[in-house]
């Protein structure tokens, strides 16, 4: 018995170890180095090892850092909310209405956008959202516009959704598919109106998956550089743009490291809160 357990541990470790080594090499190592780097100094455009808190003091005392922080947080939250709301009807249809074949097709179609580089898809939006683009042509045909969509927070949001919406639909579909159909049928039989069916039965049952989908959308949007830069025109800049700006001018990698670490701290806090909320009171369910 004990031999068997030992064997299975070794067997399990052969599969787990690469993951641990990978994490240590490509995540933990660079993270620790970045943390150390945030205390380095830059002299004559060259980084020198030091242990000074000057970079932290400088970045955290700048008003523009906190402005960027608030804006990035707000935009990523708006992205997560928009993606969750837009994805929900589609996910509902796929989970409850569509047949198995239809669902398979829909999911493969949702994966196809990831075959093309995200940057390429964003540049396609560049043409579509332009004032001389097709959307404004339609608006112009109706006698209005042109509406400025590029270089605005709206443009940034469109980019965020391009990145995350297919993923959120897939995750929500999986979450909703996991809801016990018998519970839904029982609620209906007992005369539960559709609105209450949604809020009292489906949403609580699928809460974990829906929150995780929104969280992943938030994380991807929060760290995205491409959309706020190319579709948002850096007006105003988000934290990833601030990182680029900081490294570009005078090679202030240590100060950029401060911004990056603050971003990670924010994400970890929010992810922890979201996961706690997602799994709250649902400990009994496997």
């Amino acid at each position, binding site marked *: 018995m004990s031999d*068997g357990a030992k*064997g299975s541990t070794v067997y399990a470790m052969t599969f787990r170890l690469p993951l641990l080594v990978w994490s240590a090499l490509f995540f933990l190592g660079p993270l620790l180095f970045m943390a150390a780097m945030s205390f380095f100094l830059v002299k*004559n*455009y*060259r980084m020198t090892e030091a242990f000074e808190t000057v970079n932290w003091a400088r970045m955290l005392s*700048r*008003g*523009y850092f906190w*402005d*960027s922080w608030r804006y990035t947080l707000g935009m990523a939250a708006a992205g997560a909310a928009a993606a969750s709301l837009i994805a929900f009807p589609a996910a509902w249809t796929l989970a409850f209405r569509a047949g198995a074949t239809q669902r398979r097709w829909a999911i493969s179609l949702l994966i196809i956008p990831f075959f093309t580089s995200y940057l390429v898809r964003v540049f396609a939006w*560049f043409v579509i959202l*332009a*004032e*001389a683009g097709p959307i404004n042509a339609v608006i112009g045909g109706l006698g209005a516009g042109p509406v*400025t969509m*590029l*270089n605005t927070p709206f443009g940034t949001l469109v980019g965020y959704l391009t990145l995350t919406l297919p993923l959120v639909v897939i995750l929500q579909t999986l979450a909703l598919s996991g809801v016990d159909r018998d519970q839904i049928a029982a609620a209906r039989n007992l005369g539960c109106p559709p609105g209450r069916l949604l809020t009292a039965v489906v949403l609580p049952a699928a809460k974990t998956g829906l929150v995780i989908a929104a969280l992943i959308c938030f994380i991807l949007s929060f760290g995205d550089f491409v959309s706020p830069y*190319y579709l948002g*025109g*850096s*007006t*105003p*800049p988000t934290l990833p743009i*601030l990182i680029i*700006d*900081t490294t*570009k*001018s*005078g*090679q202030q990698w240590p100060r950029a490291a401060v911004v990056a670490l603050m971003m990670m701290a924010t994400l970890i806090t929010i992810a922890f809160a979201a996961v706690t909320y997602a799994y709250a009171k649902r400990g009994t369910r496997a």
Partner: protein
Amino acid sequence: MRKNDRKVKSMSDRKKTLGLIAPSRRELLRYGAAGVTAGLAAPYVNRAWAQTTEINMLAWYGHGESDIVGAFEEANNVKFVPKYYAGGDNMLALIAQSPPGTYDVILSDAEFVQQLNLAGYIEPLDEADYPFDDMLHEDFAKFPGHWDGDTLFSMMVRFGHLGVSYNTTALSAEEAQSYACFWNDAVKGKVGHFDWHLPTLGMISLYNGNGAGLWDLDDARWDAVQETTLSLRPQVGGYFDYGGTFNSLKNGEMLAMCGIGDWITGVLEKDGAPVASVIPTEGGIQWTESYCIGKGSAKADLVKTFIQYMMSPEGQVKSAQMAAYPGHCITKAGRAMLNDVDPGESARTGQIDGLPNDPIVLIDEGRIHYRDIPVQQSLEDWNDFWSEYKNA
């Protein structure tokens, strides 16, 4: 126990199956790899026999492209390997982080040459190698920062002027005669910025009436420049890199652009876009590009030949017609050849003796100020404010 036995058996079975497949797959890979290697290597064999010398170049975008260096590469059996940067800080950082001798030829903005020299990144040049007796303007022969005493460290190769760049359907030529047009209602939300603090803050300093002292600002004047810049913020539609600046002007997303000049609009104008650049009454800023030989380069002689080529009439014309962004000729012979081979571009850019918008005349009239780095503040202060401005 029985369960474990089964596992072992199935594993060994699998191994056997793998063993059967493995040799044929390996063979396939081996032959495949040999074929691919031979196929890929074929075009390079000729070049390798001819022993092409590689020259590492550090430059702004476009200088290592075939429209500039192609003919020189062919004639001298060399190959340029360019590394492109944007902005002097970026250039200094790239050199600082590379071992000495990494870059054979460095194209620097003139205002950063002195810093290259102070840091010991560049080799002295012999003034007798270059056509100093043929300069279009006397300033070009003794350009600030290019000489240390009597020793030459960098050879100026081209220049251009920055002013008001605008969409001609949105602003009139008269309105564009002052930087005040950036605050015009017609371009509200449509003023773009080239995302670099130096040219824009220089322009605002000119608009504030600092004239020749535009880079030498005491606290009060620096505060005033910051205040004026911040008042422009509601007009601003975006901050762009090189590609974004082109795009947004071309598709009309931006109707005026601060911090640039003909080096961007000239390319668009040739494509038929309704854009132009003018030097307003408050004055314009000159960007100047110069070649240096990297310290410790093993190919200094070849690089010298290349710089001589770029100073020759042929090289000057190539620079004036550069696909990425045009720059004015600095030698009389270069201008003469440009007038011969490309009268259209000569007229468009005013590079004809006697034209009122001749860039040399603009310099003589005192309307042009050479771009410099801040005198009383550090580059860091200016950049810090730039971040604040973008977030305002």
